[in-house]
């Protein structure tokens, strides 16, 4: 398929790997963070690390929307879902995220009307078709997903729908990056910027990384050659002593982003003063809530929610995984008590979570490598 097949050529991948290895300075260890969970998924699925020298380490970042949802917000959603007369809608993986008292899937099994949708516009359809029910959409995601929620709310308002509301958990990408760069326990050399978030926000929001922290950023696509080329571009910058933003994914990411998408987000959302991120704690101005013009559609205002903070399970080390401090397999419960079938932590739920991606694709290669060592 066009735009897919040409980015999966094994010969070109090997050639890129050779070029990357040639740029690696002897004795230097490189740590490159891929911010986005989609990139983490590609890295493990296509074995990108096999094409890199051992001194180039990929560190997995916090850009998995499901993974950063704190347990308290899951419990808040479940509280709404359990109300009479409510149809609670959310994306697929979100249904399996454990809260303090089970998941949305558990609530569904116990009788709550919880349905998964691929689009908030489908939740809106459910609201139109069930005028006697309160339909709630549990919105998660970064700037890739926020425009679809905003567009849905604008359509709901234009139609005058009274039985539709959104529990907004949308987060923004720049504040956690700043938090990571300020983190004393993580030393990084460069960033692979998120591709689809950038189709919306463009490349400018990352300017502070080279300017204030002296580290290069390359916005990358999601095919194997996209990632390898982005790593080559970063290694070239590091070899030249440059720190700039470059756009490897120019076929989909305009430098200025999607201005119309940014306008609809501006119309519907405003920044929350602070928001809790799993593993990263409270980060100021890092999440979105609805503006006053859309207050009638705010599920948190329409329904009582406990708003209680729930501590993560002691055994779970998702926080360290999300910050790139430990690798998935270094977690105490990885692959034993915590698996994709019975996840303890969020990183094992979503296919973009580093633990799930590693469990599904990476662990066999690792055990094979260890056996051969």
């Amino acid at each position, binding site marked *: 398929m066009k735009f897919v097949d040409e980015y999966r050529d094994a010969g070109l991948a090997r050639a890129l790997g050779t070029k990357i290895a040639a740029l690696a300075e002897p004795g230097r260890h490189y740590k490159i963070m891929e911010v986005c*969970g989609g990139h983490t998924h590609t890295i493990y699925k296509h074995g990108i690390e096999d094409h890199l020298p051992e001194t180039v380490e990929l560190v997995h970042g916090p850009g998995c929307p499901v993974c950063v949802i704190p347990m308290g917000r899951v419990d808040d959603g479940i509280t709404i879902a359990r109300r009479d007369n409510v149809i609670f809608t959310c994306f697929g993986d979100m249904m399996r995220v454990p809260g303090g008292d089970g998941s949305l899937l558990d609530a569904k099994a116990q009788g709550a009307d919880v349905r998964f949708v691929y689009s908030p516009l*489908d939740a809106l359809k459910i609201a139109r078709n069930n005028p006697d029910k309160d339909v709630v959409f549990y919105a998660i995601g970064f700037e890739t*997903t926020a425009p*679809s929620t905003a*567009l849905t709310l604008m359509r709901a308002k234009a139609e005058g729908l009274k039985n539709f509301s959104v529990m907004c958990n949308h987060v923004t990408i720049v504040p956690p990056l700043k938090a990571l760069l300020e983190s004393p326990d993580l030393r990084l050399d460069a960033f692979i910027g998120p591709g689809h978030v950038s189709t919306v926000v463009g490349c400018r929001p990352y300017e502070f990384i080279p300017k204030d922290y002296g580290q290069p950023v390359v916005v990358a696509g999601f095919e194997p050659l996209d990632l390898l080329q982005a790593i080559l571009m970063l290694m070239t910058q590091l070899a030249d002593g440059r720190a700039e933003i470059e756009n490897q994914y120019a*076929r989909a990411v305009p430098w200025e982003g*999607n201005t119309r998408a940014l306008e609809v987000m501006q119309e519907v959302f405003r920044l929350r003063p602070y928001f809790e991120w799993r593993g990263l704690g409270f980060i100021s101005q890092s999440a979105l809530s609805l503006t006053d013009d859309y207050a009638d559609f705010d599920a948190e205002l329409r329904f009582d929610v406990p708003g209680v903070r729930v501590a993560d399970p002691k055994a779970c080390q998702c926080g360290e995984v999300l910050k790139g401090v430990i690798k998935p397999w270094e977690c105490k419960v990885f692959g034993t008590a915590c698996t994709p079938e019975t996840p303890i932590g969020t990183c094992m739920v*979503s296919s973009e979570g580093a633990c799930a991606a590693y469990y599904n694709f990476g662990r066999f290669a690792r055990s094979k490598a260890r056996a051969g060592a």
Partner: protein
Amino acid sequence: MTPSELPLVDPNSYGAVCAVVDGCLTCGDVAVPVTVVEGGDPDALCEDEHGQRGNVAVELVSPVRAGERLLVHGGVAISRIEEGT
């Protein structure tokens, strides 16, 4: 991959062209490349790589014409794919 291996998605939903095998794309930063079959506004008929057709909200990238390539996330087109860039 054959269409029978894809997750079951309601053909009348905005998710019709958004089926992926590796998990829930809307829970992540995943966008699906599609081709516009028939232009429209606010929705246009599009086709994904598996030949699945469905409506996509195109307000954020409109106007769109048949044959153009779009990236879709959660039933909403968020970008165009430009050849040669």
